[in-house]
Structure formats: structure tokens, C-alpha cells
């Protein structure tokens, strides 16, 4: 305990340099963590945040630099050393054992044993104690796999607490959470802070940082840029620190006069997913489709694109009814979907970028069924360059790119379909850093100007408010509100998303 008094910091890193074959992943970076503080770590994808965390947790060993824990110099040989020293990390996608119970997950590798026999009762009770502390709404005997991502994260945090960790690292914890779940996580972080735990918090979301952190450290291109007081820094300054250039207008929404109606969806229903959904989008218009996660937004557009079939309802394209039975039908009609999950449904990660871009049009480019490799290479290169993908060749595997660049490949894949009329983007900036975000918004703006009709599904309020001409809000599988750009505010949207607005409307109608 004496060391804490000696040093102002619980954790201090100086001059850390980490070299991977061919690249400097960290170049002389520094970091200080005060006792009981929540410290945000921000930067674009590939800035070196994850590598840095892995240095702290002993996964990687830095070539140069020193690390002081409670004022004492430490040299971790592996993750176990870091754990024993009181450092725990909670990752974005919990790395748990889904078939085991919560208790087993919490006590994995440090079970309570008496003469080699596991003390189940005591473990269950203790685990329940940790869960109660965190206000968890599930039992310690529940099966891990049956829990939501948010609940699994809670288990991971409980696990960190159970190892008596003094420093907890949260790596993009809110990325997979709904707004409500994020609020709950904030409260947990507050509690941890009160109990004296110091927290390093990685996130792309400014909301998280403002709500939780007192200080923020920014990395860019493997280098330390600076540490700032959260109260003393503006959004613009922070973005500049992260991206290295000024982004004057994050949402370059062009003024486009909407043209003819392109797509209309009437009385769309699918049992158990959504009911009686109506919406339309005009040429040059960006329509936002928002609501809480699980409101049925993705399910509706997947039916529009033929991924699933609606049980009722019609789709009209340029005023004519179209029958869409499978994804091919949708593409033939020029309705293109950019799916939410880039890695599972947007791209083939093991394939090169070029083949990913041309996958939907191989047939169109072919000569009587024989693939035209040369044409494919030229076309894919053109579209990948158009969206400014950071890649060396079109043969680079998609898995080698950062999230933002993967999203650009998905956009290039859509653009390569020359009959495109309606483009549906499902969470286009999820997990994308702020620099790539701005580029994706710019592409959206250009597409709108060219007269494409755009539907953007998003849970991110600033993006919905910043980019949409019109906004539909969904809740529990129904469209509960339609707002113009002028009417829309964070409050009105949330009201409809929580269905308070919807109820109000129905009450008014009843009168």
C-alpha cells in the first residue's frame, strides 16, 4: 500500500515500442493511470490501441519501454503474471465457455477447492454475490450461452472482480450493446470506480467517453498524441487528434431535391418479426430507419431484399409491384443491401478484395458462363479505388483490412452492380473509426446527389439526425413514427423508439 503513496499513478508506461515483423505497432508511447479513475483510450482502427492493451496484459512483450505498477517496475512474462498482479481485461466479444454455467465461467482457472475437490456450493454463492453487486438480472447457475451479449459482459466483469483486479480494461464494451444496456454498463463502471478500481476504457463512441471518463489518451498511427481532460476538450479537437486532420463537417449532407418515388413497401408483415410496416423512399433521398436494437429494422429490409420472405405485404419499385423471392430477384431489380454484419454476411474474409467486389456480378461479366477474370480485376480495382480503400493489391484478403476499410469494400461491392437504384445500408458505420466514418458519409452524400434512393438503418443518433432527409422509427416490429429532418430531435426519436410516442398518437387517434 505504501507504493501507492509514493507514486501518483497505479499504472504508468513509458517509451513503449512494440515491433511486429515489418511494422512498428507502437512507437514510443506513454500512458498514466490514476487510482480510481476511468481513463478513455481512443484512436482510429489500427492506431495501436489493442496492441497496447496486450502489452499491459502481458500477451505481447514490448521491445522497448518500462512499465510501473503501483510505482514498482514490472516485467510480465505472460498473461498470467498480469492477472496475478491485478490486471484484468474484458473484451468486446466475451471469450467465454458458452456451454458452462456463469459460476464456472467466473471461477475458470481459479476455482475454490478443498483437498482438490471443487466447492460448488461456495462458488455458486460467491458468484451470486458478485452478480448481485453488479445488479445482474440472472442467476449464477444460468448457462453462459443462454445469456445476451450484455449479460455475458457482466459475467466477464464479475470474473475480473472475483480475481480482485485493481485495474480493469474494457475493450469496446458498448459496441454490441443497445442504448439501455449501455446505460446499465455505465452504472456498473461507476460502481467499480467507487470501489477503487481503475479502469481503462476503449471506445469509438464519444458518448461513452463523455459519460464515463475523466481523462482521455489518444493514439494515432502507433504513436502517442496526447492525454486530455475530458472536460477541457471539444469534439472537433479530439477528432483532429485522432484523425490527424480537421473534419469540418462530419455529416456532409447535400441538399438534394427528392425526385420520383423509387421504393415503396406496403403492409409488410412477418409473423413474429414485424407487423404492418409501410415506408417509401424517393430518388436522391436518404431515409433513416432507426429504433432500438431488436425493433425489427434489419428483419424488414432483409425481407425487402429476399433474404427472408414476408408473410404479407407488397414491394413497389418505381410504382410497379415487384415479386422478390430471393436475393437474386432483389439485385436484378436494383435493390442492393449492405448487410449489418460485414464479416458474416457482407464479405468472404478469406477471399481477396477483388473477388469480393465482383461476387454478385460474376455471372453478368461472364462469357456464356465462363468467368472473365481480366474484366473482373479491372472493375474491382476501379471501384475499390473509387471508395479509397486502403489496400496494396486487389488480392489482399479481406480479413487483413480494418473495419472501416472492410466497410468500404462492401460499398464497392454494391457500387459494382451497375443497375443499382435503391441502396439499403444496415448500420454502415458500426465499429468504424471516425475517419472512415466521415468518408462513408461522404460517399452516401455523393450517391444521393447522383439520384440513388438510400435507406440507412442506424442506432447511432448523431448519424441518423445528421444524414437523413426523413426518419422512420420502429419499435417492437412496428413503425411508430415518421419524422422530417426538421422535426427530428434526439428526444422525439427516443419517444417513438420507446413507443411512448406511438401510444400518444394512438390515444389521440382514439379521441
Amino acid at each position, binding site marked *: 500500500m505504501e507504493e501507492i503513496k509514493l507514486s501518483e499513478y497505479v499504472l504508468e508506461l513509458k517509451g513503449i515500442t512494440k515491433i511486429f*515483423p515489418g511494422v512498428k505497432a507502437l512507437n514510443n508511447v506513454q500512458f498514466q493511470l490514476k487510482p480510481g479513475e476511468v481513463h478513455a483510450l481512443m484512436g482510429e482502427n489500427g492506431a495501436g490501441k489493442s496492441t497496447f492493451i496486450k502489452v499491459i496484459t502481458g500477451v505481447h512483450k514490448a521491445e522497448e519501454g518500462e512499465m510501473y505498477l503501483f510505482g514498482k517496475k514490472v516485467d510480465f512474462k505472460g498473461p498470467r503474471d498480469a492477472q496475478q498482479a491485478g490486471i484484468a481485461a474484458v473484451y468486446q466479444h466475451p471469450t467465454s465457455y458458452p456451454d458452462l454455467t456463469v459460476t464456472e465461467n467466473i471461477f475458470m482457472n481459479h476455482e475454490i477447492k478443498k483437498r482438490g475437490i471443487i466447492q460448488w456450493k461456495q462458488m455458486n454463492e460467491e458468484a451470486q454475490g458478485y452478480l448481485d453487486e453488479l445488479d445482474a438480472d440472472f442467476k449464477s447457475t444460468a448457462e453462459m450461452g443462454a445469456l445476451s451479449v450484455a449479460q455475458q459482459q457482466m459475467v466477464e466483469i464479475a470474473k475480473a472482480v472475483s480475481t480482485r483486479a485493481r485495474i480493469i480494461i474494457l475493450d469496446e464494451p458498448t459496441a454490441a450493446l443497445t442504448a439501455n444496456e449501455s446505460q446499465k454498463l455505465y452504472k456498473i463502471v461507476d460502481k467499480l470506480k467507487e470501489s477503487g478500481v481503475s479502469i481503462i476504457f476503449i471506445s469509438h463512441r464519444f458518448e461513452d467517453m463523455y459519460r464515463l471518463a475523466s481523462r482521455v489518451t489518444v493514439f494515432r498511427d502507433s504513436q502517442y498524441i496526447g492525454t486530455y481532460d475530458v472536460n477541457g476538450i471539444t469534439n472537433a479537437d479530439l477528432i483532429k487528434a485522432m484523425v490527424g486532420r480537421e473534419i469540418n463537417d462530419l455529416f456532409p449532407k447535400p441538399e438534394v431535391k427528392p425526385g420520383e418515388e423509387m421504393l415503396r413497401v406496403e403492409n409488410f408483415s412477418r409473423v413474429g418479426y414485424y407487423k404492418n410496416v409501410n415506408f417509401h423512399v424517393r430518388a436522391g433521398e436518404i431515409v433513416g430507419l432507426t429504433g432500438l436494437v431488436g425493433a425489427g429494422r434489419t428483419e424488414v429490409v432483409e425481407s425487402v431484399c429476399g433474404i427472408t420472405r414476408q408473410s404479407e405485404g407488397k414491394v413497389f419499385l418505381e410504382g410497379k409491384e415487384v415479386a422478390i423471392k430471393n436475393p437474386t430477384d432483389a439485385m436484378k431489380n436494383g435493390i442492393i443491401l449492405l448487410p449489418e454484419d460485414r464479416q458474416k454476411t457482407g464479405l*468472404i474474409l478469406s477471399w481477396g478484395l*477483388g473477388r469480393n467486389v465482383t*461476387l454478385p456480378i460474376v455471372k453478368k461479366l461472364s462469357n456464356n458462363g465462363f*468467368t472473365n477474370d481480366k474484366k473482373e480485376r*479491372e472493375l474491382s480495382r476501379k471501384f475499390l479505388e*473509387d471508395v*479509397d480503400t486502403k489496400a*496494396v493489391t*486487389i488480392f489482399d484478403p479481406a480479413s487483413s483490412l480494418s473495419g472501416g476499410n472492410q466497410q468500404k469494400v462492401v460499398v464497392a461491392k454494391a457500387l459494382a452492380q451497375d443497375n443499382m437504384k435503391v441502396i439499403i445500408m444496415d448500420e454502415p458505420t458500426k465499429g468504424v473509426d471516425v475517419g472512415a466514418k466521415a468518408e462513408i458519409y461522404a460517399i452516401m452524400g455523393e450517391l444521393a446527389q447522383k439520384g440513388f434512393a438510400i435507406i440507412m438503418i442506424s442506432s447511432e443518433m448523431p448519424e441518423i439526425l445528421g444524414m437523413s432527409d426523413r426518419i422512420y422509427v420502429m419499435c417492437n416490429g412496428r413503425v411508430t413514427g415518421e419524422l422530417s429532418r426538421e422535426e427530428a430531435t434526439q428526444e422525439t426519436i427516443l419517444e417513438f423508439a420507446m413507443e411512448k410516442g406511438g401510444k400518444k398518437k394512438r390515444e389521440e387517434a382514439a379521441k
Partner: protein
Amino acid sequence: MAGKSGRTISATPDKSLKKALLSWEGMLLLLFIAINILCKCISPVYTLTNVLREMPKYLTEIFLLFPMAYILLMGEIDISVGSTVCLAATMACLSSNAGVPFIGVLAVGLLTGTVCGMINGFLATRFRELPTMIITLGTQIVFRGIAEIALGDGGSVSLTNADGFRMIAGKVGPVPYMFFIVILCAVLFTVIAEKRVFGRSLYAIGSNSRTAFYSGVKVNQMLFISYTVLGLLAGVSALFLTSATYGANTTTGKGFEMDAIAMAVFGGISTAGGKGKLVGGIISAFTITCLRVGLGQINMNPQVILIILGALLICAVLLPNISQSISDKKKKASRA
């Protein structure tokens, strides 16, 4: 569009001879040559004519390799095809003995195989959530069961009139007709896999079937076609097999599915889908065949040959993993 940075991306493919030789297929080709030299050394009667003469015994399995490779490339499997061969051979023999003209007998054999394939295809696409390993394990038992019922108590049937079958077992010089058909299939299936949209779709499904579906690849159609074609070629295999054995019994075609899968895996085609080339499968098929012929000529016990083949297969599967883990270790060492 954007493209503000003016960044350019290269689109020139890397086609070096060294890379081609260092590939799995290149290694296999070297192994093929090595095996042939080995056989020539240990067996005095290992000549081209003799090899071609003895090949038909083994060629019947190679038919199955081609469509099996397609199914493996899509990340699926079919372990019922040996039973399909048995059922098709049984039906062909029974119809021949019942006095059906030979052209009708051929049709019966091919049709039986095709229908079995279609049943697998239907089940695999209708119940996508079930592993095809389980589905075809079921049909494996069902198809052989039907064949056993048809074969009756004796458990076997012999051709009463083998004239037609003798005809398809004919040869041009020392080369059996079957050899030409196998080569034709090899070329056809390879070109489709490498050069046609169908082939690209196979790899897309095997690499990520969800993305393939979202991108407009007709996943179910591809699966159904491939299973049906495997059934059809099982029919072809059954007819040629009958032309060599003049009959069918309850053990006909037993183990064919595993041989076809082994050839493909040995050829570098991953059972997880999306990886490997048909050329590799074909080279490995002929390597295995040559080894069998050569070892057979020096009267090596067939069981011992099986053990050697099994050991080779395990090495083939392990080799990429071992080399991967060695290079990983090197990387780690250089990092630390």
C-alpha cells in the same frame, strides 16, 4: 466518386513458376513421379501397358472423386455414395436378368444413381440445419438396405447375359474405354471449377455460405445439382463396376465414399470447404492408383496397402498443419 487520396491499388496477378511448384498441387505432381519411379524399381512388370490394364479395378472410384470434390468444396459431404453404387449396380443387374434390353439396363443404372443423388440433394437443402454427414449417414443405410432387400436371401446376383457389359468393358489397344471417360470427366469438372461461374460459386459457398447467399449465389440450387451429379456418376461407376464383376452383392461399392473423400483430401481439398483444387484431387487419385497397382504387382497384401494409404493420408492432412505451426513459431520467436 470519392477517391480523393489518389491511392492506387495493384491488380496484376502474381504468376510465378516457383509459386506454382511450391503449391500443394506442385508437390503432389512430384510425389506422383516419385511413386512411379519407386514402383518401377520394386516391380519388374510395372509398365505403362500393364498399369493401364490393371487400372479399371481402381478407376471406378475416381468417377466419384469429381462431384465429391465439389460437395467438399462447398463444405458439405456425402458418405452414402458407396451404397448408391451398390443399389445402382443391383438394379442394373436385376433388370438385365429380367430381360430388359441393354440400353434400358444402362438407363436403370444411371437413373437409380441419379434418384439417390436427388434424394440426398433434397434432404440437404430442405433441412439446411442438419449436417450433411448425418443426412447421408442415414441414406447410406437406407440405400444399402434397399439393395439388400432387392438382392434377396442369397445377398448377390450374377448376370445371366453379360454381352452388353462386356461391350462397355472394351478397350482401344491397352486403354479401356473407362479411362477416356474418366479423363473427359476430369477435364470437364476441372474447367467448370476453375473457369466457370459455377466453380466460383462453389468456392464462395464453401468459404462463407451466408455471404454467398446474400450476394445472390443460389446456394440450394448448387447443392442440389452437385448431389444429383454425384448420384449420376455413382450410376456410371456402378455400370463399369458391373462390367468387371458380372454381378452385384451386398458389399458392392463398400468404402467407395471414403476412398473418394480420401483422394480429395490427399489432393488438398479441405473438408471445411472453400480450399483446394480439383487438379490436386485428380493427381492424388492417380498417385494412389499407381501405388496400388505397383504394390499389387509385387503381391503385397491388400491390407498392408490400405495401411500405407491411410498413413499417407494422415501425413497429407498433418503436413500443412505442421508447416503452419512451424512458421507460426518462427514468427513468434522473431517477435519475442
